[in-house]
Structure formats: C-alpha cells, structure tokens
C-alpha cells in the first residue's frame, strides 16, 4: 500500500478538536497537561457548550491553559481558582465554569478555597492535576509528594517527621456533601485516556445539571522534575503513585446517595 493511500481524508478517524488553538504548547515533552487539555477540548466540543463555558486557570505550569482552548478564561491567583470560579458561577448561573489546578495550587495554598467551594456545592467542575511535585517553580515538595520522594526541597526524600505526610485531598473532597462526582483518573495509556475523557464528560454534565461540584483528579507525571524519561515516569507513577492515589471513582451521586461516601481501600 502506498503512503498516499494511507494518509487519505477517507481514512481519518481522529482529528484535532476545533477548540484547541494552533498555539504550540509550552509543556515539557512527556507532560500530561497536553493530553488533559485535549480531553477538555473534546468534551466541551462534544457537548456543544463552548459558548457558555468559562475556564479558570491556576498559578503553576497550567497558568497558560488559556492559550490553548478557544473559550473564555480567567487566570486566578495561586490557589484562588475555586473562589474566582464561585464568583463567575454565582453571578452567571446559566454558564458552565471549571477550574484547572495543579496539586501545589489546589492542595497547598488553595486548600481553604477548594474545601469551601466544594462544601458549598458550587456548580462547577474541578480538574485537579496531581503530579506530586511543584512543576513550575522547579520541582519542590508538594503536599502530595510521596514519603521518600526526592524533590528540590526534600533532597534526601520526604520524611514524615520533618515534612509531614502526603495529602490525599481527593479523599477529603469526596466526604463533602456539596460534591456530586469525585473521581481519580490518569492519562498514561490509551485506555486510561478514554476513561478519563468519560469522567470529564460526566463531571461537566453534573455541573450543567446543577448537582454541585464535580472533581476529577488526574494522577500525572512530571518527568522533567522527577528526572526521568516520559516512559520511565509513567512506570514510576503506576508503581509508586497508584498504590497511594488509587485510581477510580470515589463518589458518584448519580449512582448513590451523595451522603453515602465510602472511602477507598488500599
């Protein structure tokens, strides 16, 4: 078969979402943000809500998320995205609002804002990208850094006595009555990417249906600051992150009573 027979519009099964801009992404090769951005673009486009969706980007690696999706965006101060989203959502109840936050942003400086926004049950989606490290500032310890994990501020590995314990914030979020759908996903294989897309779509639908806050954690890699190749980083994530940050739905009010939260066992 000739190449021209293969690369042929009739054979096209997958194309770039129209909502993704032509801008070259600034993310490091192997970073998960690009895939998650694409999933967001696909979901928003599939649902036909691009004209009423407002994104709130964080401080951190994804601060420039607004450069890549053709929707309205506000950039928020470090950790304050849930408060900014609350302001947009409350005064624009017919619009769809989501935040896109890293673990330093959401689980450290912004703990109060995320807890209270979720507890109030703000009708919005939270995309929480957890790579266990501060990416943009150069790989320092995050609340989500695993015990023993080497970072710029824990050069001998995170020590519980000195640095405290890794924070499973999604488990805390799932206990809040204001949340309707809380899930933990990843995007390291084609299968998990498809699963993650379904989760994001479900989260957006819950926000549109005004069921409260939907929370999608995406356990991710930071191969640059983990100092690993992308392939090795994915392997390290599966081996080390997944036993602590167990993938799966933590709460799904479309199936259960929102109050009947059951902690994941690991």
């Amino acid at each position, binding site marked *: 078969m000739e190449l021209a027979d293969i690369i042929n519009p009739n054979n096209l099964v997958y194309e770039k979402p129209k909502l993704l801009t032509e801008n070259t992404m600034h993310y490091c090769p192997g970073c998960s943000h690009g895939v998650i951005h694409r999933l967001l673009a696909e979901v928003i486009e599939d649902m036909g809500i*691009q*004209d*009423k*969706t*407002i994104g*709130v*980007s964080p401080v951190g690696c994804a*601060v420039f998320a*607004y450069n890549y999706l*053709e*929707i*309205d*965006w*506000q*950039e*928020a*101060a470090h950790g*304050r995205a849930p*408060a*900014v*989203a*609350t*302001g*947009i*959502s*409350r*005064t*624009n109840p017919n*619009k769809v609002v989501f935040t896109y936050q890293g673990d330093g942003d959401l689980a450290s400086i912004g703990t*109060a*804002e995320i*807890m*209270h926004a979720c507890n109030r049950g703000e009708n919005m989606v939270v995309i929480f990208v957890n790579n266990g490290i501060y990416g943009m500032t150069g790989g320092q310890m995050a609340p989500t850094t695993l015990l023993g994990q080497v970072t710029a501020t824990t050069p001998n590995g995170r020590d519980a006595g000195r640095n405290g314990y890794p924070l499973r914030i999604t488990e805390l979020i799932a206990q809040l009555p204001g949340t309707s759908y809380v899930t933990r996903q990843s995007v390291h294989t084609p299968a998990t990417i498809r699963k993650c897309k379904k989760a994001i779509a479900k989260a957006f639908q819950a926000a549109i249906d005004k069921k409260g806050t939907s929370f999608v954690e995406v356990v991710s890699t930071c191969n640059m600051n983990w100092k690993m190749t992308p392939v090795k980083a994915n392997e390290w994530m599966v081996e080390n992150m997944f036993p602590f940050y167990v993938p799966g739905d933590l709460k799904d009010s479309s199936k259960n009573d929102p109050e009947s939260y059951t902690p994941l066992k690991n």
Partner: protein
Amino acid sequence: MGELRLMKGNEVIAEAAIRCGCDGYFGYPITPQSEVMETLMDREPWNETGMVVLQAESEIASIHMVHGAAGSGKKVLTSSSSPGISLMAEGISYLAGAELPCLIVNVQRGGPGLGTIQPSQADYWQSTKGGGHGDYRLIVLAPSSVQEMNDFVELGFQLAFKYRNPAMILTDGVIGQMMEKVVLADYIPRLTDEEINEKYGSWVTNGRKHNRQRNIITSLEMDSVRMENNNLRLQKKYARMEEEDVLFEEILCEDAEYLLVAFGSSARICQKAVDQAREKGIKVGLLRPITLFPFPQKPIAKLAKQVKGMLVVEMNAGQMVEDVKLAAGCAIPVVHFGRMGGIIPSPGEVVEALEQKLIGG
C-alpha cells in the same frame, strides 16, 4: 426626590448597592462593618433584583469571588475592615493588574495587627499607595456622612467602570456606625447579559459568543517589554484619573489665612473646629479631599499661595500629610495633628493644635 430614611452608614451601603443594580456582594464579617452583609442577608435582594449575596470563607476568598464576577462584567461589591483589607491585598493587586472594575468598602479600625474595633484612618497609605504588590492605584473615595456613604456606592461603580479599575470607599467606624438621615436613590435595574455584552463585550468572560473572539482575563505577562507596556498603560490611566476625576470640598477658604486639611470623619470634626477658631478670630478654612486618589493636588497648591500654614488632621500618625506637603511645596509650614488607636480628636483639640503648631509656632 428619593426616599428619606434614618440609617446607619453600614446599612446604607447595602441599601445603595441593591438600588444601584449591583449584581453581587461577596464578603466576610468583621467589626465595625458587619452590618453591610447582615443588612443584605436580611433584605434578601436575590428575590427582588436577583443580586447574589454570599458569605465567603475568608476575605481572601471573597475578593477573588469579586474577581470572578467582575471579570464577567458584573457590578460587584465587597466590604471589610482594616485587617480584612490586608488579607484582600493580594486580590486587589490582581484586580488592578487585570483591570477589572469593582467596589471595595473599607470601614477602618485601629491597627496595626488585630488592633481595635474603634475608628481610625490609618489605612490611608495602604489604600492610596498600593497595599498589594506592584505599581497600581485604586480610585479612593472618602465619605464624611451617611448620605455620602449612599452616594459614593453608585459613584464608585461609575468610576470603576469608566476606568476598568477597582474603586474603594475608604471610611471608618464612625461613619459606618453612626445614624443620619439619608435620601436614598431610585432603583436602577441590573444590566442584562445582552446589555453587558453590548457594553463590555470586548473584555468580559461570560461565555464566548459567535460574534466575538474568546476573552482572556489575566494579569500575567512573561514578556518584559509587553509587561512594561502594560504598566505604562496603567500609569496613563491613573494620570487620566488625576486630570478628570479629582473631587474635593472647600469650606470657608476664600479669606482663609490658615487651612485645615482632613478627610472623612476627621473633616466633620474640622468643620466644627473651623467654627470655633473663627469665633476666636482666626481665619481658618477647610479643604476636604473627597477622592484620596486621585489626590486634589492642584487646589492645595493654589491655597498654599494664599495661607500662612496648613494643619493636616487625621486619625493616624501622619499619612495624608505627606501628600499635602508634596502638593503645598516648601514655602509654608505643613504640620500634622492626629490621634491613634481609635481615639477621635475633639474640635477643641484641633483648634489648640492649630494655635500651638502653626499660629504660635
């Protein structure tokens, strides 16, 4: 003529917000301004006008809620008192950087730190010279009566939207807690989404429309040249405020040989001090800056050529006096008289300070 009522300064902020078509209030309780949110919650404006009222988990959250709502073109308000405004400083810097219009009410109390719940004017520097990081300015209005508390809500919004800049009503526990008669404004309806798109479609983030490009609200700019250009644009805007929107009041200044300069509740005390001094035969006038930024430099410079000296009366250790000195130049003495810690100076003390620090000095 509008409706006449006897109201507290804090209550009238809430009433004026509802009546001027405000879309949202996000706040956190702190003395001596808690009546603002209490009044709003009691009035339930969401039933009447659709206005959102939300008690945030902190001042930090409330100012960033203001950011979100303001960024979607809404007329949005918060209020707090000194320590709470310090917490909001981060958000205020972001609002100024992102050029978002909003109204912030600071009912000052004594500081620093937790301080006292009694009135003070010690946040003058914080309000007029930054407070948060970066080169930015707020439009700062200083009411000296309950009526002005009412009037400055709509005025603050008008100026905020004119310049796409946060505006602040800088008042204190005296004006917030006192009751006076007030003529309330007639109701202005809230803008519809269509009206917001028509007026502010070039920058609001309320959902990309088919007929416009997406909008992005950010204060981030990684390119130094573009960042400097952003700052130059902001500075140009602040210079325009100084040209077009300086407000002040002059009382008995025509024949004045000495001048009192005071704002807010200090200005009320100085009005009485002017009367007492004139009864003693001292020709004193009062200049009351209404906008603390933009500051009334030109009228003060003009009066500096007429009077023998100026006494700046403030409930702080001497903050506005620096701006008055800059405006007046070096030809005449400009001195400060102030009380701190929540103590309100009496008119007699002001006259005594005038005699001792300027006339006898």
